[in-house]
């Protein structure tokens, strides 16, 4: 199977500091990580490769230092890394990013063949939009499978896939045609530790870099700030929400407290009860 995984290097939000005086975000010196949501896709990709054979290619658009994240992905076991980097991409919103990434995917497909699956992160921790994956799917004409919690079956020969998808009030089981773009739900798997060979190979590998012209982007007005219709109007700290936390307690022991807690939850979330029962019946 040919599998592509899009990853993004993001600042480790757990370590971002706010300047005590100016109240602005201090990005300097903040370590970067692979967007955590992307790792669920990467692990799923590696599992599929282990089952069906083939190759996993990780792709990213970002500054030259994003190659560190691609190298790290190789250390988890991915086979090759491609970086699309160009100053013209600075300031890209989700529209411009999905455009640039789909060109990179097409470029890679010229050499390797069209991928069966493109995994994207459900969203990023520094943007939270959840739009890039669907944007890529739309541009490349891939089936779109978002919020996937498990892949039940794949048949690369027949070009079919069956997945479980988390929906608002339950779990959907969806069958679709390949090629598909999939975003995995967090917690659906856990990224593996690469082997000694994986990390050694990663440390010695070159990450292939392309610039805009290299992937055949001629119209630069579709890239970066110019290709980004999204305007950030204001950045602000969220105000306190109206929902209040309640403490549920009971004098008569742990299980009584638990029952009281569940009752209180279901009272406010009536749909949850049916959901849970439905899900339970699936096992």
């Amino acid at each position: 199977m040919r599998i592509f995984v899009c990853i993004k290097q993001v600042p480790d939000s757990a370590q971002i500091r706010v300047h005590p005086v100016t109240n602005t975000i201090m990005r300097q010196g903040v370590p970067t990580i692979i967007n955590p949501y992307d790792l669920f896709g990467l692990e799923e990709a590696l599992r599929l490769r282990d089952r069906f054979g083939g190759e996993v290619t990780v792709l990213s658009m970002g500054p030259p230092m994003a190659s560190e994240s691609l190298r790290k992905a190789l250390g988890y076991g991915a086979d090759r890394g491609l970086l699309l980097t160009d100053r013209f991409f600075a300031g890209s919103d989700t529209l411009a990013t999905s455009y640039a990434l789909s060109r990179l995917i097409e470029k890679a497909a010229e050499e390797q063949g069209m991928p069966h699956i493109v995994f994207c992160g459900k969203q990023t921790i520094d943007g939270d939009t959840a739009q890039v994956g669907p944007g890529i799917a739309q541009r490349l004409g891939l089936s779109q499978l978002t919020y996937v919690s498990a892949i039940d079956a794949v048949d690369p020969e027949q070009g079919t896939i069956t997945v479980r998808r988390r929906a608002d009030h339950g779990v959907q089981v969806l069958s679709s045609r390949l090629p598909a773009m999939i975003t995995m739900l967090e917690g659906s798997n856990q990224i593996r530790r690469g082997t000694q060979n994986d990390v050694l190979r990663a440390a010695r590998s070159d990450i292939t870099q392309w610039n805009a012209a290299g992937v055949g982007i001629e119209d630069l007005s579709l890239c970066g700030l110019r290709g980004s219709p999204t305007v950030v109007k204001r950045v602000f700290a969220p105000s306190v929400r109206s929902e209040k936390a309640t403490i549920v307690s009971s004098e008569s022991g742990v299980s009584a407290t638990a029952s009281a807690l569940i009752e209180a939850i279901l009272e406010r979330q009536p749909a949850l009860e049916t959901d849970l029962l439905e899900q339970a019946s699936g096992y």
Partner: protein
Amino acid sequence: MSNTTRFDAIVVGAGPSGNAAAYTMARAGLNVLQIERGEYAGSKNVQGAILYADALEQMIPDFREEAPLERHIVEQRIWMMDDKGHTGMHHRSDDYNEERPNRYTIIRAQFDKWFNRQVRDAGATVLYETTVTDLLRDAQGRVIGVQTDREGDGYYADVVVLAEGVNALVGQRSGLRPELRAEDVALAVKEMHFLPQETIESRFNITGGEGVVIEAMGTITEGMVGTAFLYTNRESISIGIGCLVSDLSRVGKCSPYQLLDRFKAHPSIRSLLEGSEMKEYAAHLIPEGGYRAIPELAGDGWIAVGDAGHFVNAVHREGSNLAMTTGRLAAETIIDLHRQGQRCTRQALGAYRKRLENSFVMKDMKKYKDVPRMLEKQGSTIMDLYPRLMNGAAQTWFRVDGRDKKAKENAIVKAAWHARGLGLLGDAVKLARAWR
């Protein structure tokens, strides 16, 4: 791209000593593998520190152009503290505003990462998030490689450089070095406090890239052997305190971070930190046993550098420079053998010891070899009594209260005599001896 797992040398750890060793060997064209357990070099390292330029300059003469340096040090304060204040020495000179300053404050996480980048650029292969768990040996017991916590058959090399820091678990587990004695290690805790650059500069009377460091001892360690420090960075202050582990467990009444809290609240320190935001907290061991605690440094197929070789000069608070110098000297020893086509046997690696003896490293370690013992016995007198006497004497001297000066002098002498008697003489002799 070759996929072989065989190297000329494997370096365990990417602190100052491991980076120096790997850098020097890679520059000389050796095929080097460096293995670091942290997410990146420096990620596991205690935050702020002083960098002594000379040791780095020996390897990277133009490091000042790129290395992440915080401030060059123009002022050194040494404080003897009692509960209410301090008496001490300040030394400051415009001479330190030289073109190639001699000492800098740095943030280790950033500095180590930069240094390690130079190692990679020099051609070494570096693995992260990989912990060396054991040494691999052949039938004769020669070290031939390392095993790690990742699945695989290990990595192999002619020589393994142990640059794993003070804990030296690999060395211990392999029986190459004894377990650390509580008397030979200090436990230090350290915090970073963020403050705007202008505030730091006005508070410490500095401008531009200038920096101030304070080293302090006295009642702040409750009679235990230890010191505290405060370093100015560009936009933050590193502050910390450490005590011998043996004292901490013997006295048992306070943990290092309680000591640090008290130090931060001390009237002499509090105002320097005011309004700062605390971020990042770290605890780390420092090998302080001195010359006598230096373990075996090399054997068949292995060599030890930096904190793993117990190279810290506690009196002058030098560690990273000894780490870099020992790393470089070990590397040079290995390079020589490599070029001569010789194996890295115990005997051949003996040349490392000779290089050390000829450098400032062993000379300084030897000079202070008796200090740890003296402190073990005289610790509380030196750490508690003398700072008190000194501050008491200073107050008697400076207060103007109608007493005549002769009476004041007598009072000072009497206080000292009362506290220590003839012991004063003995202490002076012991101190002089240990310092010789």
